[in-house]
Each structure stands twice: as structure tokens, then as C-alpha cells.
């Protein structure tokens, strides 16, 4: 294992993040605050409680997931797409590194950035609502697995994309709607029975449900199903990446 190369990629990617640290920090703080103003104060004042939790506190896990997922995807997809776009991919192909090491460097950095954003949002949320974390270890595990799995997904999107429009396509048209419809701002039990069944086909439901359980012990689906879902998603992403690098799809002629 070429640990020096993994560290080099990781540090190089993190340096890009640190160059724009103020933006990286301020942007999630502002957007989270806006969500609290709009959903927490304006709409939340009309919703009393959801299953015994104040609406403001109820939406925190969903808000964290929303940002962590979008950040993980965008950081990882941009991270690997940029060398393809400017042509520096040749260095990875000619260096004595294998694809697992490349993935570890890029996905590790993207997951770290997403984790940082997640923690910033949790900190911001704590300023607005009384935050309870019933199962801290489970919360951290869900957060880490989400950062990792969606960074893997972002990496796949970055390899697949041939232009900047494609880079935005999946996050905008697929991921964001799935998160909004995945119970980020409501409980699935609040939906009519038919839509409750439809919602169960949305993989993000399992993620948000499990994450919310780690805060308040409330879940739309059983916790082990949530763990299986996120674990399964991670394995699928890893399998796709393994195939990409085995075949050199969109990387090597």
C-alpha cells in the first residue's frame, strides 16, 4: 500500500478546502440558519410537536443529512472530475499507485469535508434548539457512514461526468429531491398510507430515519433496516468503483 501517495492526495484535496475555509464554514452556517428561520420559526410555530419533539429539534437530523449528503457528493465528484477536466489525470495513471489508493485519498478528503460541515451544522443548530443526542455512538456511526457512502457516490459521478452539466445533474435531479421527499422535514407517518408505502422505496428515508433515531429514539423504519440500507449502499458504491477501475471506464484508453 502506497500510504505516502494516499496522504499526498488527501492533503492536496484538503488544501483546496482550507484555501476557502471561510466560505466552507460560513455557507453552511447561513443556510442552516435560514432553514431554521423558514422551517423552524415560520412553519414550525404552526406545528406544535412531532411525536413529542419540538419541530425545530425534529428537523435537525434531516438538515444535517441534507448538507452532508450534498457536500459529500459535490466535493468528491468535483475532486476527481477536476483532474479529468484540466488533464492532470495522467499523473494518477502513471504513478505507482493503484485505484484503491486513489479512491482512499479522494474519498477520504471528501468525507472529511462533509463531516466538518455536518459538525458545523450541528453546532449551529444547537444555537437555535435544545439538541438531544440519545445515542451518540450511533449518531457518529451514521454520520461517518453517510459521509463515506455519498463521497463514494460522488466519486462515481465525477468519473462518469463528461462536462460540468453532468456533474450537477445527479445531485440536482435525483439526490436533492430524494432528500426532501425522504422525511428531512417531516415524519413518514404524517403521510397518507399510500405515500407511506411509496416513501419506503426512497433509500434516503432509511438514512434520515436511522439518524433521527440516534438523536431522539424516533424512527420511521426499524433501526437495523436503516443500518442495512446505508451499509448496503456503501457496498454497492464500492462495487461500482471496483468495476470502474478494473475496466478503466472513462479513465484509461
Amino acid at each position: 500500500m502506497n500510504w505516502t501517495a494516499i496522504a499526498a492526495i488527501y492533503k492536496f484535496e484538503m488544501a483546496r478546502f482550507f484555501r476557502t475555509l471561510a466560505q466552507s464554514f460560513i455557507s453552511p452556517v447561513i443556510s442552516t440558519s435560514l432553514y431554521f428561520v423558514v422551517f423552524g420559526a415560520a412553519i414550525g410555530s404552526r406545528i406544535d410537536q412531532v411525536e413529542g419533539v419540538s419541530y425545530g429539534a425534529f428537523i435537525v437530523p434531516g438538515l444535517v443529512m441534507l448538507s452532508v449528503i450534498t457536500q459529500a457528493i459535490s466535493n468528491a465528484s468535483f475532486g476527481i472530475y477536476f483532474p479529468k477536466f484540466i488533464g492532470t489525470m495522467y499523473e494518477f495513471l502513471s504513478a505507482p499507485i493503484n485505484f484503491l489508493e486513489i479512491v482512499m485519498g479522494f474519498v477520504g478528503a471528501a468525507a472529511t469535508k462533509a463531516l466538518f460541515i455536518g459538525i458545523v451544522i450541528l453546532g449551529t443548530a444547537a444555537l437555535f434548539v435544545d439538541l438531544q443526542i440519545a445515542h451518540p455512538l450511533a449518531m457518529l456511526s451514521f454520520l461517518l457512514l453517510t459521509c463515506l457512502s455519498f463521497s463514494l457516490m460522488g466519486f462515481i459521478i465525477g468519473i462518469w461526468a463528461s462536462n460540468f452539466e453532468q456533474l450537477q445533474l445527479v445531485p440536482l435531479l435525483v439526490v436533492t429531491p430524494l432528500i426532501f421527499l425522504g422525511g428531512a422535514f417531516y415524519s413518514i407517518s404524517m403521510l397518507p398510507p399510500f405515500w407511506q408505502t411509496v416513501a419506503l422505496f426512497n433509500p434516503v428515508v432509511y438514512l434520515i430515519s436511522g439518524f433521527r433515531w440516534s438523536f431522539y429514539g424516533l424512527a420511521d423504519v426499524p433501526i437495523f433496516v436503516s443500518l442495512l440500507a446505508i451499509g448496503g449502499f456503501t457496498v454497492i458504491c464500492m462495487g461500482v468503483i471496483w468495476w470502474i477501475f478494473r475496466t478503466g471506464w472513462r479513465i484509461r484508453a
Partner: protein
Amino acid sequence: MTGMVEIDDVRKIYDGGFEALKGVTLTIEKGEILALLGPNGAGKTTLISTICGLVTPTGGHVRVGGHDVITDYRAARTMVGLVPQEINLEPFEKVINTVRYSRGLFGKPRDDARIEQILRRLSLWDKRNSAIRELSGGMKRRVLIAKALSHDPRVLFLDEPTAGVDVELRRDMWEIVEELRADGVTIILTTHYIEEAEAIADRIGVISGGQLLLVEEKDALMQRLGQKQLCIELQQSLSELPEALADFDLDLCDDGASLVYTYDTAAERTGIARLIAALTAEGLSVRDIQTRQKSLEDIFVDLVHNTGNKEDAA
């Protein structure tokens, strides 16, 4: 003795069916400078890319330092540095960081003293903290070389290293190549500039249509294929070539004031003495005589052109 780079019957057919390499076999010895000449689309870059891991060959084997580039890629690639044809660099990154990064990618620990040495050698030290987008084209090309040298490769591939750079920088590059050779680095360069191959290469390979047409010592190549021209300046101009000189390969130039005789240096008899005797017999007085060696460019054009004609005929 095994070569530093051994290329054995390497073939490449791209997905679209285009056959870029049609069985190339070549051995490059340690410490030599090999120039690969060829027209656009000849397969030069594909050959280099195959050796460096950018392109997977359809058939054949490549070994660097005895290590197969596919099955033992780590050992093979550790020995190789690549300067690509295109200027592919991170525009917002500082020069020193991007060179350090390349060293890290090749698994070498950080060594600021070595990086400083490389940057100074390439006259980049003063620009080490500049963002790459602020550099001139020539400087960017130097950064590419610095990146390729950052992990101390034993084999350096330069894919059109002086394309689009000014004469002064080109000569600087040649000096750098010469210094690297003195350090025992094996250098393979592709170029369109025949002057470049003539100036720095030990051997020259000519590639066209995915085939290696020849590989020879530069001097031997020029001698073997070289033709010379004898320019004879006459005292009196001629309106046409006299009948008695029709047997010679002569051209009348400068409005009849000069005769140009083309002859083969490798031939048993050059025919010069016979020509001078024939001129004297015709009563033509000679004012001056000079010879001109056929350039490598002429040789190259002849070779590629002749091969093209043969393929067309086939």
C-alpha cells in the same frame, strides 16, 4: 545485456477500431537519448502512453528496468517520469506545492532540499510561490519537467517537450537533457523538430502509421541515408546543360551560373573526379566548389514519404 526499456511487439487498437500501434519492438539502453520522430498520428504518444500506464496495450509486453509495466507496475512506474505533450497543470496551485505533490504520488517522502535543487536547476526557484496560472507557457513547461523529475526517475519520457517554446528555452531544455544524461537518466523524447533530434539524440527512431520504420544511431543513419550535394559555381553561365554532362545527376541553378551535383556518400564511387574531368573537357571553368550534407529532415521526409507511397501501392 537487457535494455532499460524493452518494448516487445506492442499493439494497440482503440475502441473505434483504429490501430495506433502495429507491433512495435524496440530496446532502449540505459543512459541513452532516443528521439522518436514521426508525423502527426504516427503513434508516438500512444507508444509513450503505453509504456507509462496511460494506455492499456492490446498485445505485447513492455518492461522498464526489467519490470513488466502491467504485472509489476509499481516497480516499473517508480522508475519512470513523464512530461506530457499538453500543459496539464492545476492553475490555482503554487509551483512548489504541485511539484511536492508529484513526489508524494510516487511514494517518495517529502524532501524540500531535493525539490529546491530541481526548481533551481529549472530556473523556477524564484517562481516557487507563484500560482501556475500566472506563469508563461515556457515556465509552465518547466513546471511539467520539474514534476516529472520530482521523484528522481531513471527513465524520462518527454512528449514534444519544446513544442511552442522559443529558441532560447529550447536550447535550455537541451542542456537540461544533457545534464540528466550525465546523471545516467535514460531519455526518450518525441519531437516534430528534426533539429532537436539531430542536436541531442544518440539514436533516432522513425515511426509512421503505427510502425517503427527504423531505429539507428543518429550518425550512422545520416551517413547511411545521407546524400551530399556538390555546388559548382561556373565562370560563365550556361543556357542549358551540355550533352556530354547528361549522364550525371546535375541540375542547373542560379540562371545557369551554378551546377548542383547530387551524389551518395556511401557509394563506391562518388563520380566527382569524372564530373570535374568532363567539365574540363567541355571547356567550362570553375569559380568555386562547395558541398552540402543532406539534413536529417530531408532523410525523414524521404523515409515517411516512401513508406506512404509503398502502402498506397499495396
